[in-house]
């Protein structure tokens, strides 16, 4: 349901009635084939909001080229017809009659058990704060606009040009924290969490396009706290991008219309004014009016900053039971965390509904498959005109006649739209009537339509692998319309290539794997505990393995989350629930020491104090945590008054006298983090220290508290803590990596010497207590487990997910998921969200009894394979193995025969084996050497 708005929610969790208002699209999405003819004819130009108004679109349009569903819509505010004019150009141009000028608004009611809110954010509009010249100078733009400028599909095809005159840019600047961390002017104290990273990314792309470009970034703190972000930041500095710690207060005109002037302070305190050709304002995120309205309509609470109010222990649950939220709506965040929260909210929404799973779905039935193995190929070719999209360039009738002359072709037909329901029925009928056993569809792209035709084959009793497509629309008619003669010749080539390949297609039986509906969770910290409970609450038995004698992991050393929720009682509740849950078996003082199998059917051996147990499980969740770094600098271990953050917390809460009576406290940040040997940000330490600093100040206002930092990284809504600490008089002093503070042990007390950036001289701070904010380091034992399950680690020893952004809790190996600190340092609420996300991904496997596998897989030709095993090394998934088998029982004493086998559940059909094999002993279904070779020869008309 696109173009739809929520109006009302009645009822309660498990039984909501939601009233929706569907706005008219004026295009029938069942008919629209996204051919774009309407756009060609539409006379109305409208400025394109997707390209941030930097170029134009039509009144009938696609919001962007990858829009889903890929269907056009009419912008009624600009359409001539909708505004009372007489135009109907799109209606005339549309080959499918999809235009519906009489489309109207509809009210829809749906009954649901849970609701997930993911309304996103809007970028801050700097126009309201005139200071940066946005809207006044043409070359001042927001980060969102600059992003479009860098996009290859954007208005300048990815070239960085000055909007004022279209000339290439030589010098540009980024201004950070525009619309973020600005309480005084706009009452937005929070940090938008993504802008530092997007600015650095944009700067790097711009630099790649133009090596001579000079780029300056003006920042308050550089917040590259995500996985691998710190290294990217370093790389940016090495590439020559200059970073200035300075908040530029305004953008001023310069003598040239193509430049603006920035005035700023250098690190040495000198005031400089410099001209730049483009100034990018790195705008932050905010909640828009519609989202506030949505919160009101759903009856959920918002934070003072306008984001959905959630607790650290239920990061995707809103204030109203049964309604969940994810993404930037719960606070500014980047893509990986948004994707994690999306999966987490799916889990949260599903737990309550698990007993009615599949009660409203039905499975499609197909007729039994016809055996075609022995038959000679009888190829049917169906050529689509796609209205006139193809027919306008390709002489379809000639093409059909040509197809008839090709080997093995026994039937050829053309249709107006091969994808339409009636054409599908007709293809089904022809397959039966003509006894076709291979099908070639010449139409659009297999990327969008192959699945549809595969279903048609299945419905006709043919194996779905017996279809091949010739892409004569996207890769022919549309791109060669200016050369119709050559295009027609090429169309013949494409049909010939498809027919040549089709003749060699082979039926492949569908493969499915039985699922053991049970999970193994390794690690009994917060991540492991949450994952176990959420799985068990959905009815799946869980084996939870913990190496220590009790559950809780690192959280046992924590007291409060940054939102002040008490951690110990939470851990206690989780442990009690786990102990009492009938579906969870807890294995304490245990480790996993052997594992085999694949998605759906793993077997792992758990070493327990009482002996070994084998556990069968369909999925594995790794939540093996991390460790606190033990420092060897700042005289740690030499004084009774120097602690790590965790040690300090314990003593503080126990009322230790050193802290109770202490008056001078110094926190040193980045101890062990952001160092050459550990070049990442530990993400939690800034917030942790500031929280402690606030507690110290609130305990006694006379205390002097100093925080020595490199960049304060209280990202997102945590920034409020930083503001509060400053209000309370906590003193923050910046230091650089090459000029670290010095701890001097004196007889009566300690002293910390740090370079003062205002006075430009060393500054000495007497200290009763020094707290070292130490790094979070990878758990060395994770390495062994990673080996067992064949999972990759990153260079810092953390588990490497399948895709940093799109698959943040998956591995390339199916059926294994990750959560918590084993992935990267993170605070409690992110750990919990990630555990819930891992559960959502695990349930996609566990909730079926069988899992159907993709058919594009390696297959061994035993007549050709000689088991040289070259392919074993290149397989990235460990899907190949050489097995020994005995000859006939009669052949006593015969040497065992070797055989190459493909473990179908692990194979993903990449074909590296095929490209390595010197004998065509292994090939990928639908892309075998023979099939590709037939295409090559057909393309060159070389039989």
């Amino acid at each position: 349901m696109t173009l739809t708005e929520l109006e009302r929610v009645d009822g309660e969790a498990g039984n909501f009635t939601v009233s929706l208002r569907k706005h008219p699209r004026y295009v029938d999405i069942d008919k629209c084939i996204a051919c774009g003819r309407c756009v060609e004819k539409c006379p109305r130009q409208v400025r394109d909001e997707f390209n941030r108004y930097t170029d134009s679109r039509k009144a009938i349009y696609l919001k962007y080229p990858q829009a889903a569903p890929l269907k056009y819509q009419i912008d009624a505010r600009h359409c001539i017809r909708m505004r009372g004019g007489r135009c109907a150009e799109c209606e005339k141009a549309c080959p499918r009659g999809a235009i519906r000028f009489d489309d109207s608004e509809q009210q829809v009611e749906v009954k649901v058990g849970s609701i997930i809110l993911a309304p996103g954010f809007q970028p801050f509009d700097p126009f309201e704060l005139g200071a940066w010249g946005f809207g006044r100078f043409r070359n001042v733009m927001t980060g969102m606009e600059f992003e479009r400028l860098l996009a290859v599909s954007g208005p300048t095809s990815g070239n960085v040009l000055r909007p004022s005159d279209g000339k290439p840019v030589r010098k540009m600047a980024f201004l950070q924290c525009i619309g973020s961390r600005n309480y005084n002017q706009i009452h937005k104290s929070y940090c938008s969490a993504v802008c530092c990273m997007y600015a650095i990314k944009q700067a790097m792309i711009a630099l790649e396009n133009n090596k001579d470009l000079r780029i300056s970034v003006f920042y308050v703190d550089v917040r590259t706290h995500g996985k691998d972000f710190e290294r990217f930041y370093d790389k940016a500095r090495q590439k020559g991008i200059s970073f200035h710690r300075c908040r530029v207060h305004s953008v001023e005109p310069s003598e040239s219309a193509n430049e603006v002037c920035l005035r700023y302070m250098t690190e040495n305190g000198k005031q400089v004014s410099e001209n730049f050709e483009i100034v990018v304002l790195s705008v932050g995120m905010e909640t828009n009016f519609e989202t506030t309205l949505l919160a009101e309509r759903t009856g959920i609470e918002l934070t003072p900053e306008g984001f959905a109010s959630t607790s650290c222990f239920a990061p995707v649950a809103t204030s109203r039971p049964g309604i969940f939220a994810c993404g930037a709506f719960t606070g500014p965040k980047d893509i990986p965390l948004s994707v994690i929260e999306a999966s987490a909210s799916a889990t949260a929404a599903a737990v309550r509904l698990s007993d009615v799973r599949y009660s409203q779905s039905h499975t499609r039935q197909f007729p039994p498959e016809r055996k075609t193995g022995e038959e000679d190929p009888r190829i049917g070719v169906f050529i689509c005109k796609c209205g006139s999209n193809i027919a306008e360039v390709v002489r379809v009738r000639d093409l059909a006649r040509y197809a008839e002359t090709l080997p093995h072709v026994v039937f050829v037909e053309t249709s107006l739209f091969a994808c339409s329901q009636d054409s599908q029925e007709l293809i089904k009928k022809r397959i039966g009537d003509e006894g076709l056993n291979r099908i070639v569809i010449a139409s659009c792209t297999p990327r969008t339509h192959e699945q549809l035709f595969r279903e048609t084959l299945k419905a006709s009793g043919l194996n779905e692998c017996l279809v091949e497509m010739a892409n004569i629309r996207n890769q022919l008619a549309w791109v060669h319309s200016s050369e119709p003669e050559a295009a027609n010749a090429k169309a013949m080539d494409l049909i010939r290539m498809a027919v040549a390949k089709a003749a060699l297609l082979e039926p492949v039986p569908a493969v499915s794997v039985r699922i053991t509906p049970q999970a193994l969770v390794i690690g009994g910290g917060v991540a492991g505990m949450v994952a176990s409970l959420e799985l068990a609450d959905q009815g799946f038995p869980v084996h939870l393995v913990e190496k220590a004698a009790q559950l809780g992991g690192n959280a046992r050393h924590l007291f409060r989350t940054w939102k002040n929720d008490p951690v110990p009682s939470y851990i206690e509740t989780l442990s009690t629930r786990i102990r009492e849950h009938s579906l969870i078996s807890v294995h304490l003082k245990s480790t996993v020491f052997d594992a085999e199998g694949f998605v759906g059917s793993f077997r792992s051996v758990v070493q327990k104090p009482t002996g070994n147990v084998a556990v069968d499980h369909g999925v594995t969740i790794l939540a093996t945590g991390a460790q606190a770094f033990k420092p060897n600098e700042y005289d740690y271990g030499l004084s009774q008054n120097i602690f790590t953050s965790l040690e300090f917390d314990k003593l503080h809460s126990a009322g230790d006298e050193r802290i109770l009576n202490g008056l001078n406290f110094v926190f040193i940040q980045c101890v062990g983090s952001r160092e050459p040997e550990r070049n990442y940000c530990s993400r939690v330490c800034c917030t942790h220290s500031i929280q402690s600093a606030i507690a110290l100040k609130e305990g006694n206002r006379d205390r002097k508290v100093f925080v020595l930092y490199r960049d304060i990284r209280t990202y997102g809504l945590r920034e409020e803590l930083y503001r509060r600490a400053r209000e309370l008089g906590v003193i923050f002093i910046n230091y650089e990596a090459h000029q670290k503070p010095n701890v001097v042990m004196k007889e009566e007390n300690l002293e910390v010497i740090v370079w003062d950036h205002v006075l430009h001289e060393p500054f000495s701070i007497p200290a009763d207590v020094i707290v070292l904010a130490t790094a979070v380091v990878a758990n060395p034992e994770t390495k062994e487990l990673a080996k067992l399950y064949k999972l990759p680690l990153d260079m810092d020893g953390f588990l490497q997910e399948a895709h940093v952004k799109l698959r943040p809790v998956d591995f390339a190996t199916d059926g294994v998921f990750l959560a918590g600190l084993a992935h990267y340092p993170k605070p409690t609420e992110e750990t919990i969200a990630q555990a819930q996300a891992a559960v959502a991904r695990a349930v996609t496997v566990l909730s079926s009894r069988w899992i159907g596998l993709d058919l594009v897989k390696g297959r061994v030709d035993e007549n050709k394979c000689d088991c040289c095993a070259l392919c074993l090394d290149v397989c990235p998934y460990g899907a190949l193995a050489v097995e020994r088998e005995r000859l006939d029982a009669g052949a006593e004493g015969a040497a065992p025969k070797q055989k190459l086998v493909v473990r179908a559940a692990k194979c993903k059909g990449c074909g590296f084996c095929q490209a390595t094999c010197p004998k065509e002993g292994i090939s990928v279904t639908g892309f075998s050497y023979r099939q590709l070779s037939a295409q090559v020869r057909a393309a060159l008309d070389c039989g």
Partner: protein
Amino acid sequence: MSEWQPGFEPKILAFACNWCSYAAADLAGTARMQYPTNIRIIRVMCSGMVHPGLVTEAFQAGADGVLVMGCHLGECHYQDGNHKAKARLAVIDEMLSLLGLEQERFRLIWYSSAESERFAAVAREVTDVLKKLGPSPYRRDASEYADKGIIQCL
């Protein structure tokens, strides 16, 4: 062999990865970008599945140029197929000299699925280069070009 011959239309084969260049070629269509018709795309799941033998076969069967298109390094759908393709197809250079063909006839190119404009631009550029290079002596119709004195027969 170095001058462009009017009337000569090179035949170019492109092994295009399903996740990047093939998608970019589709997108080029959606945007109605125009490029020369010389390129024939063969869809593969990954540049890492293209056996060097296939490339050799294409040249022996008379292709004037062969392209293998994969995802940008570091962006492979199957971890590192493009790296494998790069390592494996290094042998093509050697094979080309054995066949007596110019190195410019083969290219390994990286794309993302959004780079439709680049797909079209590369198609134009490669066609241009091959037109200037002239027909491959392995073409079935090579003798016609030899008769005109454009190339030497093998």
